Every structure is written in structure tokens, then in C-alpha cells.
């Protein structure tokens, strides 16, 4: 997806090189639950932003069936952000160095993850027994809805403050248990997080 977006960006920038509203950028997002993902963005229109995203997440959810569970995975996908300010009738003041907009984000990513879980059965007379349940290369989907605020500083730096990220992804273990897992990382319960992102922009 990132490659497609990059090619698309290159083609578009080649065809319309001087279009002033077309911003491109690279950045990094962090979530309060420990997930992080780089992103490549293209703002084809002032009110819409396309994103190419790669994400890595690792966490150890509490699963009652196991003594310890470790889950990690990579996700890749795309997203769309809708910005409110360009949609307003009131035009932006070009003299301002910081421009803010409310934004609504939607992402979809497909990932490959793995988990390693074990349970210790206590031995009374003999040694304890460790039962292992692990799987590799499990495919899973991740969807995310976010609401936040964006600040563009001098058309060079973009700061995203996203207090609400609602996203979830789950996989089934070999034994049939649902392992809570999310690309936003650190997911152990309700799939809600907050995030912050910083991107470098160019035209």
C-alpha cells in the first residue's frame, strides 16, 4: 500500500508539480498503549489526506487460560483522514504560521502476527508441567476510527493530537481462545487509546 501511494504521489507530483495544496510527508505516531507506526501521507485535496501505514505492536495480554501470553505482529495498510477546516466556508488565514483542524481518521490494516503462550500446571509429587501453545504467521485485520486535532506549523511540521483511537483486532489461538490484540499496542481490554504524531511535510 505504501509503495502504491508513493508511486501515486510521484506520478501526481510529476503531472501537477506546482499544485499548492498537495502536501506530502513522513511521520511517526505513538499511542498511549505503547504501539508505534511510521506513516507516509499525501494530501491530494485540502480536506482529505491519504495515509500509508506500517505498524508494529507487542504486548502481553492477561488471558485466563495461560500463565503468560506474548503477542507481537506487523501490520501494513492505508488510511483516510477528513479535515474539518478546509470544509468550512470561512477561508484560512494564509498569514498564520500555525493552522489547526479537527480531523476524523479511518484506517484499515492487514497484519501478520505470532503468539507464544504457556501455562504452568503445578506438580504436587513430581515436577511442574509447562503446556505451550504458540503459532506463527497468523493473518489478522485491524480497523481503526480516530478523532483528533491537527496542527500544521509553517507548512513543514504537522502535529497530530488524537485523544480518541478506537481500534481492535483479534485472533484465535490454536486452542480456540480469542487473544486480544491490537495494532495500537498494549491492548489488554477495551480497545481505546490516545495517540500523538509528528510528521515532516513538503510540497
Amino acid at each position, binding site marked *: 500500500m505504501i509503495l502504491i501511494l508513493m508511486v501515486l504521489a510521484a506520478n501526481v507530483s510529476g503531472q501537477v508539480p506546482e499544485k499548492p495544496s498537495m502536501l506530502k510527508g513522513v511521520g511517526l505516531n505513538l499511542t498511549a498503549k505503547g504501539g508505534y507506526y511510521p506513516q507516509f501521507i499525501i494530501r491530494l485535496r485540502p480536506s482529505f489526506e491519504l495515509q500509508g501505514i506500517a505498524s508494529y505492536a507487542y504486548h502481553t495480554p492477561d488471558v*485466563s*487460560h*495461560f500463565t503468560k501470553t506474548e503477542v507481537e505482529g506487523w501490520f501494513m495498510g492505508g488510511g483516510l483522514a477528513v479535515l474539518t477546516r478546509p470544509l468550512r466556508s470561512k477561508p484560512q488565514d494564509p498569514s498564520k504560521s500555525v493552522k489547526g483542524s479537527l480531523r476524523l481518521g479511518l484506517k484499515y490494516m492487514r497484519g501478520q502476527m505470532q503468539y507464544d503462550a504457556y*501455562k504452568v*500446571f*503445578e*506438580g*504436587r*509429587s*513430581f*515436577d*511442574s*508441567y509447562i*503446556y505451550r*501453545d504458540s503459532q506463527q504467521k497468523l493473518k489478522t485485520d485491524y480497523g481503526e476510527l480516530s478523532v483528533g486535532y491537527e496542527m500544521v506549523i509553517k507548512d513543514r511540521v504537522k502535529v497530530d493530537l488524537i485523544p480518541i483511537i478506537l481500534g481492535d483486532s483479534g485472533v484465535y489461538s490454536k*486452542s*480456540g*481462545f480469542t487473544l486480544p490484540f491490537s495494532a495500537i499496542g498494549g491492548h489488554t481490554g477495551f480497545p481505546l487509546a490516545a495517540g500523538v504524531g509528528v510528521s515532516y511535510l513538503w510540497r
Partner: protein
Amino acid sequence: MEMRRFFILSIAIGTALGCFLLYGCDDEPCAGFEAEPYFLLHADSLNFKVYCTNNETGDTVHTNERDFALLPFDMNATQMKYDIYAPDFKGSLILDYILRGVECDYRSKMLLGFDHLSVNESSTFRDFYTLGIYQSRYSGIRIDSIENLADFFTPYSYGDVSNWTIRL
């Protein structure tokens, strides 16, 4: 009018019964052990001993002399030998087994169950009784052959430990 009332009442009772049955099915307890599996050996005499031996590593556990002996399975082995003295040597019971994790939705836990469990034919002690109502051998069923032992020790017979008790 009476017929209509009877019809409605029948539907209501049928629905309630169906819900009860479905709910009851979900509440079935899980068959499996939360820790080291075991079965119980009971004797009228207090004077008996059992040596539980893991044939793979040679670990041996000596059960205390008491009314009930808890006979463990080594979870890291695939065969256990139980040498029984009551009070003289009466013989050995040898069990072959493979353990596995068992999903338990009802209790939301992982339990340990038997994927395979069989009585080894080299067992020399074949004179047990199942636990009877009055904990007397005369109210239990005699198990005096490999076939009977195999019927008793199956991977699915351990759901209730009280059903997995043998008597000398």
C-alpha cells in the same frame, strides 16, 4: 377456547424447557485437572504403601500409609508404575498415557486432560474394586482383568475424581 389456551400453554412450557436445556448444556463442567492429575486408592486397612515410579527419569514417590492414597501422574512422563504393598507386595499397576491441554469454556480456563490413557499389559496387579456406595469393596464392582482396567482408566473417565477411585 380451551384448546387455544392449552396450545399457548404448551408453547410457553416448551420454550421454557428448551431454554433451560440449552442453558444447562452450557453449564456442563469441564473434564480435566487444574494441576497434577491423580487418582485415588482406598483400602480398609491403614497398613498399605504405594510406590509411584516414573519410568522415564526414575523418580519415585512413596505415598503415606493412610486410608486414602493419592496416586499422581508425572506430567513430564508418559508411563507410571504403581507398586502396591498391602501389606505384602500385591503387584504393579502400569499406566501409559499422553497428556494435552483441554480448553474449558465453562470455567474459562486451560485444563490438563488425557489424550491417551491405557493399562500396560505387563501390569501384575489386577484385583481392584470400584468405590461402592458404602466405601466397601462388597458394594463396588470387581476389576480383575486388563480389559476391565482398560474400561476403568479411559481418557474420559476422570471428570469426577470420586468416579476415579479404586479400592484394594
